[in-house]
């Protein structure tokens, strides 16, 4: 099973009917034609039951039969021209709270509209009996609606009161219940004013805010699981009798001898006893260029053995190995992150005490002034209703939903609303090198190569896992290669093939030619019978738009820095080329995290941009983090933002949206406060009739929503030409899961 297949199996979820379900994110899906093409092609694959494309979230969900093996989904999509990334499917249970909120919202909307219809006729001057009738009908509609929709608020208020505290739901619940009770009493006594419409409209607007807020809340997600996937389940341990026994990783103790085959991950930190191979140490250094290993080399748990079998001796138990340390760093970082208090939460702390005091004082004041209990209660209820946190409840989530939609239109997925707030607070940006500033895949440097030589190299390289071989095998040129009778891999050295009596070698220069080439650059050599044929050099290309993106970030006043696990020479070269003054090289994951913590201690808030291989703990520890979609599973899980398009321009764009969003949130708060300051005296003076209350609530909510929508119109002229069709209304499904 190739790497993709192994990942597919692990990232998939078993279904009740025996099939397995896998979700892939395919950023390139853009239209109806894509849906038809993808579904038809994937459904035609042998193991696939069926496939369904979700255009709104740009995901493909595939049901496949485990007996027929994981289907070649990545390859099939690549053949169509779509890049696919595995989507972590495990945690996506249907969101029960969201469903309950939407149902409550629907009922509240229905009730509010019908009661409002009746109220309008009353305000237009219905006579006494008709008015009473309409009041009774309104009460009949309001009672079940309040019971069903208000549960959420009542339950939350009750929980808070039981702890001896008040939260935002306490004044809401009191206001709604008192309003209903008082209106019922008034209806019984044929009074002209009833506040049924105000109380249900209050719930309606609040539920809108609550639903949007829930959509933008961070769902419990942990990237630690993604790291765990890099751990081998077990290994072949050689006992004293010489027989190899498969032992779970947890039971490996220092001193055990382990046989590590090609393609397996190192289970625990170990030293090589025998064998020669190449290892993918991306987990430690972020570099995909393999590192050669021979007897005496020290290996870290989690790195991938690429080419040859090794016999290794365990140096540490599993939970003292490198991977376990990474997991611990991640867990520490993730628990530290949850302490961030969002603006809305901080604002709501003030709300309840202020409103309660205002209502109580106006009640006492009117009692003292007139001695009329009914009038005093009416005014207290009016105060509670008019200071309703509709605007407050909508202020933040509305802006965040519009911002998320805007980001999504540019291929940036946001995990939750607090990420947007945190992004607006940064003053430093830290970049990983490989896979972030660069594309992370070796690309054949454009040079004059005989197409036949390229075809020979591609034929030889097709059998190897080595990144250079894979890059060569991906070149489909016009040249022709002879049919090879035998192709074999010499671990740590290269590929050897026999064709037409000639021995071809593709690999290290010393091995293929017998001597080293004068200019020692990273690359491979193609040799025939020991004679030089062609040399291939590889580059790791800088991401498109990197220079412009960095210039934009610098113009915004942010400090830039490169933190990489790669050697100082290559990091320095890249940093100088891109104009980034500060850089740190050869950093292990723990050192990256420590660097971020040091910055935080000096009061800097950093945005970490990485691909998650050797900076997963750093992504979790930074104030806010972004990762490209090509990043490792772990990176996509740990980061707050995932940008789907290959260009780096996503970063300055996201930052500008975050800053604009913060400005609009502040404006919305200001609007809500001003509204309350104006409405409060009117309520205390006793001028609030149901009509006034309804107008005030609707007016303030609409004002806040309209202000939030301004985020869309901002800088519309700067959108690049084929922008994905951004939908007209915020949708539930598009928030990154």
């Amino acid at each position, binding site marked *: 099973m190739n790497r993709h297949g192994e990942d597919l199996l692990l990232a998939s979820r078993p279904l009740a009917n025996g099939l397995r379900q896998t979700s892939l994110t395919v950023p390139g899906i853009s239209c109806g034609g894509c*849906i038809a093409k993808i579904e038809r092609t994937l459904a035609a694959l042998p193991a696939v039951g*069926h496939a369904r494309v979700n*255009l*709104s979230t740009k995901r493909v969900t595939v049901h496949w039969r485990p007996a027929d093996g994981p289907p070649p989904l990545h390859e099939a999509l690549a053949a169509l021209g779509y890049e696919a990334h595995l989507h972590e499917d495990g945690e996506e249970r249907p969101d029960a709270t969201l469903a309950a909120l939407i*149902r409550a919202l629907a009922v509240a909307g*229905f009730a509010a*509209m019908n009661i409002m219809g009746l109220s309008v006729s009353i305000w237009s001057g219905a006579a006494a009996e008709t008015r009473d009738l309409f009041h009774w*009908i309104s009460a009949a509609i309001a009672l079940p609606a309040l019971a069903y929709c208000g549960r959420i608020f009542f339950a939350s208020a009750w929980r808070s009161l039981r702890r001896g505290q008040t939260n935002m739901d306490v004044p809401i619940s009191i206001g709604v219940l008192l309003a209903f009770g008082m209106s019922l009493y008034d209806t019984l006594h044929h009074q002209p004013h009833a506040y049924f419409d105000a109380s249900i409209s209050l719930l309606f607007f609040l539920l809108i805010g609550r639903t949007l807020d829930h959509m933008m809340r961070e769902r419990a997600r942990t990237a630690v699981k993604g790291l765990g996937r890099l751990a081998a389940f077990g290994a072949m341990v050689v006992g004293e009798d010489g027989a190899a026994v498969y032992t779970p990783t947890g039971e490996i103790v220092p001193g055990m001898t382990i046989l590590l085959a090609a393609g397996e991950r190192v289970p625990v930190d170990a030293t090589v006893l025998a064998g020669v191979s190449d290892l993918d140490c991306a987990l430690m250094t972020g570099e995909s260029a393999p590192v050669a290993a021979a007897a005496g080399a020290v290996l870290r748990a989690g790195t991938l053995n690429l080419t040859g079998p090794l016999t290794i001796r365990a140096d540490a138990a599993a939970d003292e190995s490198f991977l376990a340390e990474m997991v611990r760093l991640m867990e520490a970082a993730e628990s530290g992150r949850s302490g961030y208090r969002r603006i809305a939460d901080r604002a709501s702390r003030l709300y309840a005490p202020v409103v309660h005091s205002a209502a109580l004082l106006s009640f006492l004041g009117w009692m003292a002034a007139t001695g009329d209990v009914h009038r005093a209660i009416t005014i207290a209820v009016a105060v509670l209703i008019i200071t309703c946190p509709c605007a407050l409840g909508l202020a933040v989530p509305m802006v965040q939903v519009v911002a998320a939609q805007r980001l999504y239109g540019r291929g940036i997925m946001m995990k939750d609303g607090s990420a947007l707030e945190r992004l607006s607070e940064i003053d430093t940006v830290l970049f990983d090198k490989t896979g972030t500033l660069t594309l992370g895949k070796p690309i054949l440097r454009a040079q004059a190569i005989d197409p036949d030589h390229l075809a020979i190299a591609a034929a030889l390289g097709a059998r190897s896992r080595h990144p250079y071989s894979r890059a060569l095998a991906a070149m489909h040129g016009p040249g022709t290669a002879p049919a090879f009778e035998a192709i074999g891999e010499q671990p740590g050295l290269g590929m050897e093939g026999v064709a037409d009596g000639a021995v071809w070698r593709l690999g290290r220069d010393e091995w293929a030619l017998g001597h080293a080439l004068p200019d020692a650059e990273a690359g491979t050599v193609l040799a025939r019978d020991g004679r030089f044929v062609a040399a291939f050099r590889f580059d790791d290309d800088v991401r498109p738009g990197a220079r412009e993106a960095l210039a934009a970030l610098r113009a915004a006043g942010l400090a830039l820095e490169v933190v990489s696990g790669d050697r100082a020479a290559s990091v320095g070269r890249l940093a100088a080329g891109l104009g980034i003054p500060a850089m740190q090289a050869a950093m292990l994951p723990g050192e990256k995290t420590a660097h971020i913590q040091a910055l935080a201690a000096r009061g800097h808030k950093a945005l970490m941009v990485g691909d998650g291989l050797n900076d997963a703990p750093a992504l979790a520890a930074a104030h806010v983090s972004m990762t490209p979609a090509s990043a490792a599973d772990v990176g996509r899980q740990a980061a707050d933002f995932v940008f789907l398009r290959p260009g780096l321009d996503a970063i300055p764009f996201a930052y500008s949206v975050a800053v604009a969003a913060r400005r609009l949130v502040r404006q919305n708060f200001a609007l809500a406060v001003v509204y309350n300051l104006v409405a409060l005296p009117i309520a205390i003076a006793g001028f609030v009739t149901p009509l006034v209350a309804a107008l005030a609530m609707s007016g303030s909510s609409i004002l806040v929503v309209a202000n939030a929508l301004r985020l869309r119109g901002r800088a519309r002229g700067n959108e690049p030409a084929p922008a994905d069709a951004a939908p007209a209304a915020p*949708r539930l*499904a598009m928030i990154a899961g």
Partner: protein
Amino acid sequence: MLWLLIPISLGLGIVGLATFFWSLRAGQYEDLDGAAERILFDDDEGPTQL
């Protein structure tokens, strides 16, 4: 007349509400963009149950 009209309007409203709940449960809001495109497909395959 009013005795008839008000219950009818409420009843229609409730029918609308029930229909909304049904469509919510049936997952019709999962992929609004995709649904807009699928009506233009020519093939005769019925909806796949996912």
